[in-house]
């Protein structure tokens, strides 16, 4: 029997349906793989008992012909999603051993459709980071290494655990969240596929909030098809989240393999940065050529306000975060570090509970919202946001179906390599933040390798609620570039 972990989610689904193997078997091989891959530090909590129980239940349902769209498929869950009776920490000390009494809407939809939970995945603390180095559980290791080297590399972030686990074949797919690139950048660093849906496509209810107007849940999968399958179960309107949109959820998988003939693909000139590595440049051109070969028409477009996106993002996101994280005060749940007064209790708890990057962003956010600075920072950043959104709208109004860009300005870097300068770290999101600022869908698809053998990804940005086009185009790139699997060293 072939190693079941090497199957795609789609293949496993078909295998389960025609009873080539059981969910319990599929789950066991993944549990073993997780155990063998602890060096990657992708999981912060393994839930084998729960996984087996869910797998047995799925097998029973499949046996009765009642299996849902994800029946028996073992998944990893980013630790930002509240999971009922299972510790949820957002990888922050401040949540300590917090165990929710509730299940996030997105994960409850996955369980509704029959999926199996293997455990909780590592991420940057409160999803703040681009390397998964800010987690209180320590950094996640990328299963990819440079050719002939054994330097440990970051998997990107904040969904580093999700990307690493999917790339290392520890789970068939994973949930992730994306506030400024947290799905797409790690997907690009690990040769996995990551979809950040349109803002409002997935419910945010039960997901630990970072920046409410930017946060969006999405899947990381092994292939475009796998990602489209997960997407269908994760999406949907939720009356408990006012910002979720009441719109029918399409059959995203049906879009995979659909012709892209005649589609106009925007190539934004402003994304051609000074000093951009030649291999990124080359990858981008190749991507355009592949899409052209499939019948699409690449056209140069302009998104003139792109250069303001990153600074504006680093005002809006910390501002919202400073307020969203105020609830972690040591009074009701999570960590409490006592003090002689309530003020001291707050200070001690938050000083000890939050890591350096979270503290930095809370302080930036508090500053930009302060009286006297609000207009100069927050209000202006919101105006920039409107302009960025308009850039995209103008582009789509001219008939552009999707926009092609590099996913990241470089391949994965070494753990500890970019710790010193936060701005250098923030630059990782240069190609992805615009999408969050405009609330659009974006997908990262593996497209090649750099000279050191590390994966690189391309990003496709779509019209609001047109994830389907991104799946169709993404699959063209996937077909042309091939799939990439890291050599196992762990």
């Amino acid at each position, binding site marked *: 029997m072939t190693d079941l972990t090497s199957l795609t989610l789609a293949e496993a689904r078909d295998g389960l349906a025609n009873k080539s193997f059981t969910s319990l078997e599929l789950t066991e091989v993944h549990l073993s793989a997780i155990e063998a891959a602890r060096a990657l530090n992708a999981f912060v909590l393994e839930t084998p008992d729960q996984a087996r129980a869910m797998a047995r239940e799925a097998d029973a349902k499949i046996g009765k012909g009642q299996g849902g769209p994800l029946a028996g498929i073992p998944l990893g869950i980013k630790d930002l*999603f*509240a999971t009922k009776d299972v510790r*949820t920490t*957002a990888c922050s000390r401040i*949540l300590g051993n*917090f165990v*929710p*009494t*509730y299940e*996030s809407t997105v994960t409850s939809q996955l369980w509704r459709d029959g999926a199996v939970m293997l455990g909780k995945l590592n991420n940057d603390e409160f999803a703040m980071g681009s390397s998964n180095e800010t987690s209180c559980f320590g950094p996640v290791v990328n299963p990819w290494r440079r050719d002939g080297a054994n330097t440990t590399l970051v998997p990107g972030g904040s969904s580093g655990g999700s990307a690493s686990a999917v790339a290392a074949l520890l789970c068939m797919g994973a949930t992730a969240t994306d506030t400024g690139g947290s799905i797409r950048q790690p997907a690009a660093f690990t040769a996995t596929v990551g979809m950040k849906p349109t803002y409002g496509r997935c419910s*945010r*209810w*039960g*997901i*630990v*909030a970072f*920046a*409410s*107007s930017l946060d969006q849940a999405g899947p990381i999968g092994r292939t475009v098809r796998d990602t489209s399958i997960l997407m269908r179960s994760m999406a949907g309107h939720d*009356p*408990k*989240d*006012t*910002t979720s949109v009441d719109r029918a959820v399409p059959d995203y998988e049906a879009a995979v393999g659909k012709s892209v003939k005649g589609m106009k693909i925007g190539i934004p000139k402003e994304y051609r940065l000074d000093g951009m590595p030649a291999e990124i440049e080359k990858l981008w051109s190749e991507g355009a050529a592949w899409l052209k070969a499939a019948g699409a028409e690449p056209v140069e477009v302009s998104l003139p306000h792109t250069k303001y996106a990153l600074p504006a993002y680093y005002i809006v996101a910390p*501002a*919202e975060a*400073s*307020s969203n*994280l*105020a*609830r972690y*005060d040591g*009074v*009701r*749940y999570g960590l409490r570090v006592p003090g002689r007064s*309530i003020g001291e209790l*707050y200070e001690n708890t938050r000083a000890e509970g939050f890591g350096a990057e979270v503290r930095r962003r809370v302080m930036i956010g*508090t500053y930009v*919202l*302060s*009286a006297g600075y*609000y207009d100069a920072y*927050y209000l202006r950043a919101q105006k920039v946001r409107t302009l960025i959104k308009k850039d995209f709208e103008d582009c789509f109004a001219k008939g552009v179906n999707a926009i092609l860009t590099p996913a990241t300005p470089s391949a994965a870097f070494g753990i500890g390599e970019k710790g010193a300068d936060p701005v250098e770290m923030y630059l990782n999101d240069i190609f992805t933040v615009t999408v969050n600022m405009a609330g659009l869908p974006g997908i990262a698809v593996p497209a090649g390798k750099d000279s050191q053998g590390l994966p690189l990804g391309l990003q496709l940005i779509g019209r609001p609620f047109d994830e389907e086009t991104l799946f169709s185009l993404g699959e063209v790139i996937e077909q042309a570039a091939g799939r990439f699997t890291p050599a196992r060293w762990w």
Partner: protein
Amino acid sequence: MSATGSKLIKGATGDWEMVIGLEVHAQVTSNSKLFSGASTEFGGEPNSHVSLVDAAMPGMLPVINEACVRQAVRTGLGLNAKINLRSVFDRKNYFYPDLPQGYQISQYKSPVVGEGEVVVELGGGDSVTVGIERLHLEQDAGKSLHDQSPTMSFVDLNRSGVALMEIVSKPDIRSSEQAKAYVTKLRSILRYLGTCDGDMEKGSLRADVNVSVRKPGTPLGTRCEIKNMNSIAFIGQAIEYEARRQIGILEDGGVIDQETRLFDPNKGETRSMRSKEEAHDYRYFPDPDLLPLEFSEAYVAELKADLPELPDQKKARFIAGFGLSPYDASVLVAERESADFFETVLADLADKARDGKLAANWVINELFGRLNKEGRDITGSPVSAVQLGTIVDLIGEGTISGKIAKDLFEIVWQEGGDPRALVEARGMKQVTDLGAIEKVVDDIIAANPDKVAQAKAKPALIGWFVGQVMKSSGGKANPQTVNDLLKSKLGI
């Protein structure tokens, strides 16, 4: 506004004028909280009405309770105010143990209701119009309990997230009397609308009072805010104290610090709570978890059409329809329950046009007088509106005299029963039979020839004869008939 009812305070350097504005926090009457499904019931076990949202658990999101929005719009309409078809919820950020989210969801730049006005009646037929600056919706906080343990404080989140309307007046108020009358009137309007129960003891209605003083005609002075007043009487006392305190400082050459103060009802004085330097920077920004609140003109029109009759309209109707004096009408409409009682009395009357005013007199003088004496309120009246209506009918149709009616009222108060049947059973009917009365009159004239002679010389003595006739008829003779008969028989 008119200066009616304004009261200048004499200081050592001349007259001073108070300038007062109020922020009233009114708890919205609703079954569940502003952004969660938890109950708003008062007095539950601590932390028994707390949802995951109210406790600010990770990943929880607020969802607007449309019933609360409807109440806010109805209140705005009741205050003759502009309804904003688009408004925005903001976060007001500060740390406090009874504020689980670390921010209060409120409305800062774009409130649901804009400018309006309230006409406030003062004594002696005067009135003053107080402008409404705005009304916005916001969450209440929980309650810190410091008396449960010697070493710890506890928090009760039952109130956390309950909907409040903050109603901000313009600084149009010029005396403590006006301020008290304004709160009284506002409370009355809210209770008529059913948007707030106005129960100040339970904290359903609280006011922050802004007070400053100036020499008449000069620019506004620096104000102090007296927080969290939950009694109309204390509002009056606090304003009087605070104005004099400020005048004292200014006349001594000092300056007023803009600050927040608390009123101590035991000492009857205000004291500093925190100064402007310590004031919070609330870092307001639009709540990204909530969409702007938007509704159509049609929605507002529908709510407007469904508004109940409010005190001003009811008062006008009572005056125009039944000839009530403005004072009597004001007394009747002040409380919704009194007005409802009076309306029921009216509804029961056989001849509303004839007896409406009489009914008002009976409700105000006899019923309210008696209720006050016994410390009861209208909802606990032993005499029902229907019973009182019947008593008024009996007077109006001439079956009993006003004097007998008072006896009848007393019987109904003590024993209950149908007034008409009581009059019949106890022989309280007024005698209008001319023959019967004439006999009594003749007997008395015959028995008192000396008085007859005196009366012819001094007609005022007729009163003595009337008294004698009434006495011997047991009060049941119709006084007008007696009077007429005596006049003709005595030839005066």
